């Protein structure tokens, strides 16, 4: 019995270990190659670099104009996510607490956006009419709009599990609707607000479709597109491309490690409760 258990344990651990390796392998290859010299990185292998060249990173930062694109990415991701969190919490709060016919309609109408495709061709027309094309304001507004539906879904689901008695007590104590949102609503929602912030930050950071359509000026490009551009110029210098890739991923990797709990919670919350 014990013997069988040990065999089972070895088999099952062997399988999962192999699977996990397959998933981090590409990341590992990129990391190793980012420290190699040009010749070594021509064939992407798992071999350790003969000499660890940290200067690759320095070169990339200087030649890839990474500061500018890093600043752009930061701007889009943080401003976009903060605005999403603030307006969607307010919306979800009233929609979830007062389920009138109109409010239910608004809710279902908006979460339809989780599934609907964005028509970038006509969105371009709207951007031109509103004079937002090729502007940083414009791209932030688009990011906010397209990420609202899933954010609403997550926050709404969270509010359904909050006891309404707290609100009632506050109202009896003479809270106005605005105070109720600011002093009761937002504080109660803070855990889910962190989740929504983190998920949106990563989504916006990683996106490249919107700048592809709506920003033709490379000085406004986020890091993802800058990498792509960099790749176009340094196509046969994979060590540099790998260093650039690592730098672009670094912020989201850090956030991922720090905020794992919130990400996993947010990903699984809505879908499990259904």
């Amino acid at each position: 019995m014990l013997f069988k258990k040990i065999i089972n344990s070895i088999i099952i651990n062997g399988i999962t270990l192999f699977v996990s390796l397959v998933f981090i392998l590409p990341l590992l290859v990129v990391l190793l190659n980012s420290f190699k010299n040009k010749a070594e990185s021509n064939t992407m292998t798992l071999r350790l670099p003969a000499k660890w060249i940290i200067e690759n990173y320095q070169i990339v930062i200087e030649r890839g104009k990474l500061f500018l694109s890093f600043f752009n990415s930061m701007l889009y991701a943080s401003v976009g996510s903060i605005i999403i969190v603030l307006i969607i919490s307010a919306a979800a709060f009233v929609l979830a607490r007062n389920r009138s016919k109109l409010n239910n309609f608004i809710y279902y109408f908006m979460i339809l956006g989780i599934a609907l495709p964005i028509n970038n061709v006509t969105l371009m027309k709207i951007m031109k009419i509103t004079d937002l094309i090729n502007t940083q304001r414009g791209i932030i507004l688009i990011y906010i709009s397209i990420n609202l539906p899933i954010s609403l879904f997550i926050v709404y689901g969270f509010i359904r599990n909050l006891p309404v008695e707290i609100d009632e007590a506050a109202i009896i104590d003479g809270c106005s609707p605005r105070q109720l949102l600011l002093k009761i609503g937002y504080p109660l929602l803070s855990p889910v607000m962190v989740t929504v912030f983190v998920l949106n930050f990563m989504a916006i950071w990683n996106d490249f479709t919107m700048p592809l359509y709506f920003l033709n000026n490379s000085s406004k490009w986020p890091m993802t597109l800058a990498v792509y551009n960099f790749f176009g110029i340094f196509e046969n210098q994979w060590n540099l491309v790998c260093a650039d890739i690592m730098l672009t991923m670094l912020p989201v990797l850090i956030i991922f490690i720090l905020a794992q709990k919130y990400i996993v919670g947010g990903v699984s919350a809505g879908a499990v409760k259904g």
Partner: protein
Amino acid sequence: MNKKKTYPTYYSYAALALFIIFFFLPGIMGIFYSFTNWNSLSSDVNFVGFKNYEKIFSGRYDFIRYIWNTLKFTGLTMLTKTVFGIIFAILLTHKLVMCRNLQRMAIFIPQVMSFLIVGLVFKSLLNPVTGFLNNFLKTIGLDFLAKNWLSDAHLALNTVITVDTWKGVGYLMIIIIAGINAISSTYYEAAQIDGANFLQKTWYITLPLLKPVILNVTILNLTYGLRVFDIIYALTNGGPGHVTEVINTSVYSEFSKGNYAMGTTLSGILFIFVMMISYVILRALEPKEEL
């Protein structure tokens, strides 16, 4: 308590307005413009009836194949991600497995990488001559398995689907793990007493009780697959010779060529199709929702 006063609906108007202007309105406008000859060459837009739709469905152009590719991509990724998601979730909730949390995170990591980066990395790893995969296969003596993963017309779409599964399966696994953790342990204890083994427990308890979660996951996969753009653009950009082209990549290429009407027609077809599916799904889920 006067709910209408306490929770003023206008608190939702900022979100609603943005959603309508930058998301819903373009969708509706797209359907309107699909009946025109809107393009970048001339400034006037004329009504042309169903001409654009005719062009797509007549089969004289490749568009019908792009729609087919989209459906194929959606169907296959739905299958692979769900199946592997369930397998990984069951394995990584098994008590005998060590460092479960760490391994879950390892499988989830591709999810936090940008599609563009995933595309670059895999284009390099799958390079037929210098790539990691073929070199690896050659070192272990499996030369015959080394293929032109992304440039072989017969393989390309399957390669893209595999990479997409690699990227997306962690997300589904996390959802399914949460579903498994929500199953009451009393079921397993009862089965234990009845002498059920691991496979029996999985088949008769875990899977049936996961049905609602699997349904949700399937919906997520469905809506993702139909709208896919990023992974295809990043890996093959529709090539070689349009064999991996899907609706949204062809929207982009029509858009770049200035054929706005055609781009918007393709996008409109997707819009209407997804609307219909969403309606059916919402209807099907309605009774469970306590409104």
